[in-house]
């Protein structure tokens, strides 16, 4: 979300072989959706060649201090005609390989989008954030899970090496330019500006006492404008809200959004005993202008084998109170609950994007006073 209330969206096509992602924008003021750029055109990597296409723009859209919109492409969409694709199996395949994520830039004034080149060959970009002061990107790759930095001014890439197994979804940068992400045990890793190396911290995301934190990673995190601390949600294993204070590098467990009485520590995905696909992880977080932390969640109210109904939740960091705002529905459509991103516009309206629905929707929630 830009300060001018333009929401930039990466529209992905993971489950349609040969498809390519689109950069889109939504003008929050007039509700106009624009389809800005086809990643196959931007990158020049045509799916017709048989390569694994740029089927996603993953968690990587950033606005620079120059006003331009930056992002990176990502893989996992199968080549045209293939039923599926494995990034490991096809890593070096001469035809079905993924060329590597392109860093791209979009100029909102000219509405032109161009590629700045491949970051790391064969690697997608899972998450990328921009240190606005230094104009340095920080990101993680997939499938090899490397941490990289890219200095936009010097056009210099640094691959800082592997940080975990395969799973990485979130990275945040504090006011001093320190970039944080987690390894595959949910332990925090920091890349300090100017140092050029990674440091593993003795800080771990909250998890159930009987788990050791494996595969419990960050899904999303956002800065509390009031305090400078970061609030976020965990994913894949535990489902918890956390608070991280970068000044003292302290992690606080803010609790679990909800659960069942007989399951105090449900798994965020694949909870045993529940029929069908269950994804009850808390989704993308955003602070409203009212100081509450908003996020979607799936599974609340779900019965076995029933439809998935997504709720909108909010958490007050000032009091520690959580509130379930109910099932998110609009125009007859019920939110599936799987949503990795939420944003707030300048007027306090909350935007929640739906993953894994065809077609996907995004919802606008207008809190009282917004």
């Amino acid at each position, binding site marked *: 979300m830009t300060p001018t209330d333009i929401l930039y969206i990466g529209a992905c096509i993971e489950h349609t072989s040969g498809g390519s992602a689109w950069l889109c924008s939504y003008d929050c003021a007039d509700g106009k959706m624009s389809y800005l750029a086809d990643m196959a055109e931007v990158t020049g990597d045509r799916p017709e060649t048989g390569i694994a296409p740029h089927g996603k723009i993953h968690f990587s859209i950033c606005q620079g201090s120059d006003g331009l919109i930056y992002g990176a492409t990502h893989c996992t969409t199968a080549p045209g005609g293939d*039923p*599926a*694709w*494995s990034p*490991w*199996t*096809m*890593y*070096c*395949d*001469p035809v079905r390989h993924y060329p590597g994520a392109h860093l791209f830039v979009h100029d909102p004034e000219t509405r032109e989008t161009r590629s700045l080149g491949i970051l790391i*060959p*064969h690697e997608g970009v899972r998450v990328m954030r921009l240190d606005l002061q230094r104009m340095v990107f920080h990101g993680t790759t997939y*499938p*090899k899970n490397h941490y990289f930095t890219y200095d936009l001014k010097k056009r210099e890439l640094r691959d800082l*090496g*592997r*940080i*975990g*197994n*395969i799973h990485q979804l979130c990275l945040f940068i504090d006011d001093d330019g320190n970039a944080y992400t987690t390894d*595959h*045990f949910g332990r925090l890793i920091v890349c300090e500006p100017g140092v050029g*190396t*990674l440091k*593993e911290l003795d800080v771990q995301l909250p998890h159930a006492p009987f788990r*050791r934190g*494996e*595969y419990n990673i960050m899904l999303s995190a956002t800065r509390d404008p009031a305090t400078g601390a970061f609030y976020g949600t965990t994913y894949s294993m535990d489902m918890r809200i956390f608070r991280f204070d970068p000044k003292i590098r302290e992690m606080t467990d803010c609790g679990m959004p909800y659960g069942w009485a007989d399951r105090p520590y449900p798994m965020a995905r694949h909870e045993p005993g529940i029929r069908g696909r269950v994804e009850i992880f808390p989704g993308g977080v955003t602070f409203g202008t009212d100081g509450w932390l908003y996020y979607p969640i799936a599974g609340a109210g779900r019965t076995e084998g029933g439809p998935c109904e997504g709720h909108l939740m909010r958490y007050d960091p000032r009091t520690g109170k959580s509130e379930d705002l109910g099932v998110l529905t609009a125009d007859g459509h019920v939110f599936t609950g799987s949503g990795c991103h939420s944003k707030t516009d300048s007027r306090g309206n909350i935007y929640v994007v739906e993953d894994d629905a065809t077609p996907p929707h995004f919802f606008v929630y207008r809190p009282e006073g917004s």
Partner: protein
Amino acid sequence: MRREIRKAGFVTEGAIIVRTLGLEGMASPIPEGESGIIALRAAPNGRIYGLTHGTRSHFFVYDPFPTEDFVIDLGVVGENTTGGDIFCAGDGLVYGIVFGERDGSTVQTSVFRYDPSGDYVGLEHGMWTAAPEMLPRHLDGSRVSKLAFDSDTGLAYGLLLPGNVLFSYRGESGELEKLAQVEGRVVSPVVCVADGAVYGVGEWGVVFRYDPEAGEIELTGMVIPAGKGKDYVNEASALVYDGVSRTIYGGTSVDGYLFFIDLEKAAVVCCGKPTDQPYVRCLTVGLDGRVYGVVGQPNRGMCHLVRYDPRNGDLRDLGIPFGTVTEHWVTHEIDSICTNRNGHIILGENDRISHLMIYYPAVERRR
């Protein structure tokens, strides 16, 4: 189908156990950036010794004996290192050479030895091990190739780089002798001891043989396989000797071919190319005579475990090593391998975060 396709590239024949480089769940493993494994050797008593590189080099031991089934970091043997090797000598000691480079020039080369005779490892009653002993340095200014140990003579052989000087080293006395210059622009950084002679590969992929008694290098006329026209840049990237069949097995750098040298017939036979990548990273002979190896382009590829069966010529890509015990882990870079006394294949990962991957080959079904 989608799930099956996504899983199909991993090793599914046999099983893999992941071992961190430390006492699982009890001690921090060898830190990130210092854990890349560059050498593994199986000692006659079943212990596996290993060497890492990085901001610091660690020398470690892994003993699969049930009460000691974890990795012990025996100590730091070098700093800012980029390569090295170890060997288990006939006196029961383990010797190692590790070197570090900075800005393209060698900084220093360290030599160490380890005496395990006083070790006791057992969690219940405590644990004590010796520390590696640093030896006087002969080799400053040089890197060394992978080493080959002749158990009959007690000599380790290797190449001093740059310059491609074949040398021998006797651990007990610390005596290093420069033997011969291997001529050529491209000389493979590996050697192999077979039937008392030292074999290597020189320019244009030509196999050379050094006879310690004659004290001379002889060009054999045998050439390792390469794609047509690529001999001028081709190297043997791995060599291993099977004393039972009197066969040297090797792998190439440019194409990732597997080959063997039949010493009786003095012939090189190309087994084929098991994956779509160049660079055979390492090889070991299993207890059953099958040859296991790792193929993968360094840093830009994805390592695969491969197997060659000399009984029928079957060459197979077994897949990418992936284990879920003791943690979920996929390996991308592997540069060392050995066979333990039970026939398990030990893979040494060489990445910023590294593990031992223990491969248990499948038991063959009777026919």
